[in-house]
C-alpha cells in the first residue's frame, strides 16, 4: 500500500471536520430559536423575567447536547485513536463514516430540542404560575428527542472501536464491499435520526405549549407525549438495526 499509516489519519481528520461542522449548524439554529422566543417572552411578561431566563438557559444547554456529542466524537477522532499501519482502507472508511453518522445525527435532535425549548419559553411567558411543570415537561421532551442522537453516538463508537483491521491477502472487491458498507451504516443512522429527532421535538413543544394552556390535564398530556414520542422514534430504530447489520453482518 502506498499510503501506509497516513490513510487512517487522513480520513480521521476529515471525519472530525465533517462531524463537528455539520453538527454545529442546527445546534446554533436550535439555541437561537430558544433565545429569540425567550427574549420575546420577557417583553410580554417582564414580571416572570427570571423564570424565563432560567428556562431559556437550561433549554439551550439541553439543545446543545447533540452538538456536544459531535464535539466528543471529533475530539476522539483527532486524539483518541490508535493509528495502526495495518488498518488500511477498512479503518479509513470507518472513521469517515463515524464522523458522518454523528454529524448528520445531531442535526434533527438539536432542531427538535430547539423547538421544544422555544415553545416552553412562550408558554411560561403566558402562564408564569405553572413554570415549574412546564420546564420539567420541556426537559423530559428534550431528553426524548436526544435519544436518537444517542443511537448515532453508539454507531459512531462502534465504527471507531470495533471495526477490524484490513486483513492481508484480500481481494480488491472485498475491500470495496466492506468499506462502502461502513459508509452506508454511517449514512443510514445519520439521515435516519433527522426526521424522528425533529418530530419528537415537535411533540415536546406542543405538549409544553398545551401544558401552559390547560394545566389541569398535566398527566394525560405527558402520557400522550411519551407514547407519541416513543412511536415516532421507531424509524430511527429501524435505521439503527440496518446500521448494525451493515457493520456486523456483511462478510
Amino acid at each position, binding site marked *: 500500500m502506498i499510503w501506509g499509516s497516513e490513510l487512517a489519519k487522513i480520513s480521521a481528520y476529515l471525519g472530525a471536520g465533517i462531524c463537528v461542522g455539520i453538527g454545529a449548524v442546527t445546534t446554533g439554529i436550535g439555541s437561537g430559536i430558544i433565545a429569540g422566543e425567550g427574549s420575546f417572552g420577557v417583553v410580554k411578561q417582564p414580571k416572570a423575567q427570571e423564570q424565563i431566563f432560567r428556562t431559556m438557559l437550561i433549554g439551550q444547554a439541553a439543545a446543545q447536547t447533540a452538538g456536544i456529542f459531535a464535539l466528543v466524537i471529533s475530539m476522539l477522532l483527532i486524539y483518541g485513536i490508535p493509528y495502526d499501519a495495518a488498518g488500511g482502507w477498512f479503518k479509513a472508511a470507518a472513521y469517515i463514516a463515524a464522523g458522518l453518522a454523528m454529524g448528520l445525527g445531531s442535526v434533527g435532535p438539536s432542531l427538535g430540542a430547539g423547538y421544544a425549548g422555544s415553545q416552553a419559553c412562550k408558554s411560561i411567558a403566558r402562564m408564569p404560575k405553572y413554570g415549574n411543570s412546564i420546564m420539567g415537561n420541556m426537559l423530559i421532551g428534550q431528553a426524548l428527542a436526544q435519544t436518537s442522537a*444517542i443511537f448515532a453516538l453508539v454507531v459512531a463508537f462502534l465504527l471507531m*472501536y470495533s471495526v477490524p483491521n484490513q486483513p492481508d491477502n484480500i481481494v480488491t472487491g472485498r475491500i470495496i464491499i466492506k468499506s462502502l458498507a461502513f459508509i452506508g451504516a454511517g449514512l443510514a443512522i445519520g439521515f435516519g435520526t433527522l426526521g424522528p429527532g425533529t418530530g419528537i421535538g415537535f411533540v415536546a413543544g406542543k405538549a409544553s405549549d398545551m401544558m401552559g394552556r390547560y394545566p389541569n390535564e398535566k398527566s394525560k398530556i405527558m402520557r400522550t407525549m411519551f407514547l407519541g414520542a416513543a412511536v415516532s422514534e421507531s424509524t430511527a*430504530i429501524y435505521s439503527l438495526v440496518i446500521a448494525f447489520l451493515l457493520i456486523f453482518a456483511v462478510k
Partner: protein
Amino acid sequence: MAKKKNPILKICLIFFVIEIALVYLSGNFSRKLEIGFSDKKFVIRHIDSEFNLQDKISEEFQIDEYYAHHGEKPTLWGSSKLYDFFDRMPFDSTPVGTFQLLRMLLIVDILIMIIVILIRRFLTFKPGKPQILFEIIYGSLEEFVVETLGKDKVYYTPYIVTLFLFLWICNMIGLIPIPGFMEPTRNLNVPLGLGFLSVVIVHVSAIKFKGAWHHIQNYINPVKNPLFLLDIVGEISKVVSISFRLFGNILGGAIIILVVSSLVSFVVFPVGLSLFFGIFVGTIQAFVFTMLALTYIGVEIGE
C-alpha cells in the same frame, strides 16, 4: 415549621470525597485500582496496566471476542464454581458473556422476589415509605390499565406492574458499583425476548376476546384487509422497535459513561452522567416499554 436542610448537598459532597479518594488511590491511567473478590479473598490492589480505550470497550461490550482474541483466563469476579458447573453441562460451551448475563438476570429475579415478599409481609394500614412508593407505582399503573382497557379488564395490572418492576430494576442495577455488575438489558437477548412476549400476549388476548377466526382473518384475507401483507411486516417491526429502543438507549448510556469517564479520569462526570443515563433514561425507557406493551393490547381489544 422549621426549615428542613436539603440532603442533596451532603450526598453530593460524600460522592465527591469518595471519588477523589478513588482517583488518588488509583493514580492515573497507567495504574488500575481493583476492588473485589479474587481467590475467595477480598482484595484492594493496584495493577500496572497500559490504558487502551479500544481494549476497554471490547472487554466491556464484546467480552467473548475479547478473551478469544487475547487468549487469557477471564476474570469472573468470584464465582468460578458456578461457571465450571455451567461449563460441564452437556451443551456446547458457556462463553463468559452468556454466563455473566444469566448471573445478572438471576440476581435481578431474586431481588424482585425479596422486595415483593418483604413488602407483602409488612403490609399495614399505616404505610411506611417503601409501601407508599410501591402503592404509588401499583396505583398509577392500575389507573393507566383502567383508562386504556376499561374497568372490566383490570386483571392485566399484575402483568404490567411486573414488567415495569423487572425492567426498572434491570436498568438500575448497573448503577451499583460492584465489578462485573451490568444492566441485563444491555444484552440484546433480554429486550428481544420481552418484546416478543408482549406481542404474543397482544395476539393471545385478541384471540380470546374477538375469536380466533375473526382475528386471524385480518392477516390472511385480502378482501377484508387489502394491506394484510403490510400488517404482518408491521407486527414483526413492532417487536423490533420495542426491543431495540430499550437496548439502544441502555447500551448508549453505558458506552457514553465508560468513554467520557475514562477521558476525564473518573473524577466529576460519572455522578452526573449516571444520574442522567442510569436513573432518568432507565426509568423513562422502562415506563415507555410498559406503556407500549399496554397500548398494543388496548388497540386490539379496547372498548
